[in-house]
């Protein structure tokens, strides 16, 4: 039977003391671990300083010389190179330099990376079963332009692990430019907005090339691929994709419809009638976006449509409609409507201020 006596039989002072001793011992272990960590970090800091001074010497030589640089590994550095953590630091330092330079000097940085045997480390990481080692291996090999690893890396562009997959995609585009986007055709996993931004920034540095698979991507069953293809169509003004972009306006995905609306503006001179047809059923954010496109490619013909939107209960819709009217020769109409309408008068003042009227 449960009683206070049973409780005190269970929670005896001796047991509590044992528990306290156990916690105290663990506390002491953590304190020791803290100081070991701090000591190790301090040692690593000094080691890094020593390695940095050695590396700086090579790097400055590598940056100045047009011709291949031969490096001589000092005994100090050889000592450091024995430890994986120090090798990792050297690899990271070289990658950081590589990121910030271009031209012949990059070849010298890559040469140092290879001569120090760091490529072997990167390949080992690539073949590791652990996702964080594999993704790091891909990153290092790509940053150091190790093209021979390309096929092996390309296998991971549809990996189940998001980090590995993203790094492999980045590497493939890095190696092959626009042609590297071919992974989109078979991609079954999501391509998140961060990764899309990374890829677009990579492509931004390159001259535009043909994208023969673009129609396929615009009709992909993977919504993320479709969205990314719309962005490509927009940025690289792929006029021939007009019909496919129009089809995307009827997508069930709000993000795809929004991007399609933005893309339309870039590949046509006049807003398609479907935008007006779809308008009523759109979300507030998409309505605002559609009206923004009218402000750029709309004309006096669209004023009645825009005028109708001034009745919307959402002031942000009215504001965008007003902005579009101001740009579509509809300002007189707007001002007539604003008479005795406090909200429209206030919106009108803002639009006039923005346009410097």
């Amino acid at each position, binding site marked *: 039977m*449960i*009683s*206070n006596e049973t*409780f*005190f039989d269970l*929670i005896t*002072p*001796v047991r*509590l*003391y044992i*528990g*306290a*001793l156990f*916690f*105290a011992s*663990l*506390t002491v272990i*953590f*304190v020791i*671990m*803290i*100081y070991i*960590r*701090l000591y190790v*970090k301090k040692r690593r800091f000094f080691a890094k300083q020593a390695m940095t001074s050695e590396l700086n010497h090579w790097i400055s030589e590598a940056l100045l010389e047009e011709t291949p640089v031969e490096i001589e590994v000092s005994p100090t550095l050889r000592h450091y190179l024995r430890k994986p953590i120090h090798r990792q630091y050297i690899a990271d330092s070289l990658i950081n330099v590589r*990121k910030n330079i271009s031209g012949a000097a990059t070849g010298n940085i890559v040469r140092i990376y290879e001569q120090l045997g760091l490529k072997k480390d990167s390949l080992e990481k690539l073949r590791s079963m652990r996702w*964080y080692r594999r993704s*790091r291996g891909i*990153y290092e090999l790509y940053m150091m332009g190790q093209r021979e690893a390309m096929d092996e890396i390309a296998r991971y562009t549809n990996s189940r692990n998001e*980090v590995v997959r993203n790094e492999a995609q980045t590497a493939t585009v890095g190696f092959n430019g626009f042609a590297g986007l071919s992974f989109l055709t078979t991609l079954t996993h*999501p391509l*998140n*907005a*961060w990764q*899309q*931004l*990374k890829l*677009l*920034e990579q492509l931004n540095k390159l001259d535009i090339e043909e994208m023969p698979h673009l129609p396929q991507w615009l009709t992909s069953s993977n919504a*993320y691929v479709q969205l990314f293809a719309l*962005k490509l169509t927009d940025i690289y003004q792929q006029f021939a994709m007009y019909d496919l972009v129009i089809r995307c306006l009827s997508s069930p995905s709000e993000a795809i419809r929004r991007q399609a609306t933005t893309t339309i503006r870039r590949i046509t001179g006049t807003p398609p009638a479907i935008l007006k047809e779809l308008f009523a059923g759109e979300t507030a*954010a998409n309505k605002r976006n559609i009206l923004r496109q009218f402000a750029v490619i709309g004309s006096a013909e669209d004023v009645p449509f825009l005028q109708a939107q001034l009745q919307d209960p*959402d*002031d*942000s819709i009215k*504001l965008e409609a007003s902005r579009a009217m101001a740009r579509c020769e509809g300002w007189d109409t707007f001002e007539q409507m604003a008479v005795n309408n406090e*909200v429209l008068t*206030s*919106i009108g*003042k*803002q639009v*006039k*201020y923005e346009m410097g009227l």
Partner: protein
Amino acid sequence: MMAWEIAVLMLTYGIFLYAVTLLTAYLLIGVASVGEAQKYLRKNEFSDFRLLATSRHAPSISILAPAYNEGATIIENVRSLLSLHYSDLEVVIINDGSKDDCLQKLIDGYDLVKIEKHVQYRIATKEVRGVYKSRKAVYRKLVVVDKVNGGKADALNVGINVSSNDIIVCIDVDCILEQDALLKMIKPFMEETSAKVIASGGVVRIANSCEIRDGRLEKIVLPTNYWARMQSLEYIRAFIIGRMAWGRINGLLLISGAFGAFDKETAVKAGGYDHRTVGEDMELVVRMRRYMEELGQPYKVTYIPDPLCWTEAPESTRILGRQRNRWTRGSVETLKMHKVLFFNPRYNLMGMLSYPFWFFFEMLAPLIEFFGMVVFAVLTILGLINWHVFVALLLFIITFGYLFSAFAAYMEVATFNMYRRRTEMMKLLLTALTEPFYFHPFVVWAAVKGYVDLIRKKNSWGEMTRQGFGQTPAKK
């Protein structure tokens, strides 16, 4: 068995069960935080956040910073915000009817001029008196809103109404943000594919004694003041261990009002900040989550463990007491407003785990501890204390507390390692030793006073005097 015997028995086992559950929860939180911290660091170790700073494909952000009587430091604070690395940024300063020269200083300092701006009161707020922008192109990101005083929640709601962008970052204007804070904070919004990220919280650290120049953190130093140092440890425990673990299971109910990012549309649809509570930061997160749960849409509240925001902690018992009093009232008010969540399976994890945890171990904890102290005093007076058991139990609890603090300190060293000197870590650990006898009872007492104030319907924020970072003292 007599009725009082049954009552004592129930009390004994009840408190025992409570303690066991609490200790188990802390252990689980500790374990969960390790894996999550490791995953975060590994995932982001070679992320190039600089891409976001300049990319035209990056989402646009509005920072909302309410200011009330911040005249002494406002120019520096705004300069610090304008220097953040992010190109598509709007910095909205909301002057909440300050009685000092805060607005005038902004007008003079940034060459502001009143502009025509239509304000739609999507969330009902006090009246907006005017919107200002700078004539200088270099300050084009700055928007200053002057409004009738209505409190922090009302000011933030005005900020939401006025802001132009889809992601809003709500901060305390006197916080120091790391230069890359926004880049790191926005990444989760872009990464998530399976659920919509409705909010993202960042770590807040204590800036007392740190060297700050031109609104930037120059050198990180452990606070020299005991109370601020103790709070440093408390924040490490809360942010590196607690929120990390809750973030892992998508169970976060609180994002610090000092630094948090929100999806504006969800915040507006949920109704914005509630000015009826002093815990408006927690209340908004709970309401946004509840809104998403009721819609049946998948969502996430994420958490960034990088130390991105530095704030000044109270250095006196008077101010600290007021702060903890307010936190208690805020928690109780929020939980009361959303009592429908309590063990309600309709709200999934939030209803079945997050809410009950907050209820039992955050809201009730000070009351239970206080009750324990009272019972102890009574039993001592009556001579009914079994000192042998008492000392053993006390040692058991205290050593567990030490263990948790040492673990937090270890996690700090193993992850972000802000306090690198051995002497600083020693000071932090020694400070932890005093916690059960000095800091903790004080915090419990302040929380109990919060309950008393709540019963007496006192709902003021309490004056929060800040020293300012090497500035003239300012009042908030």
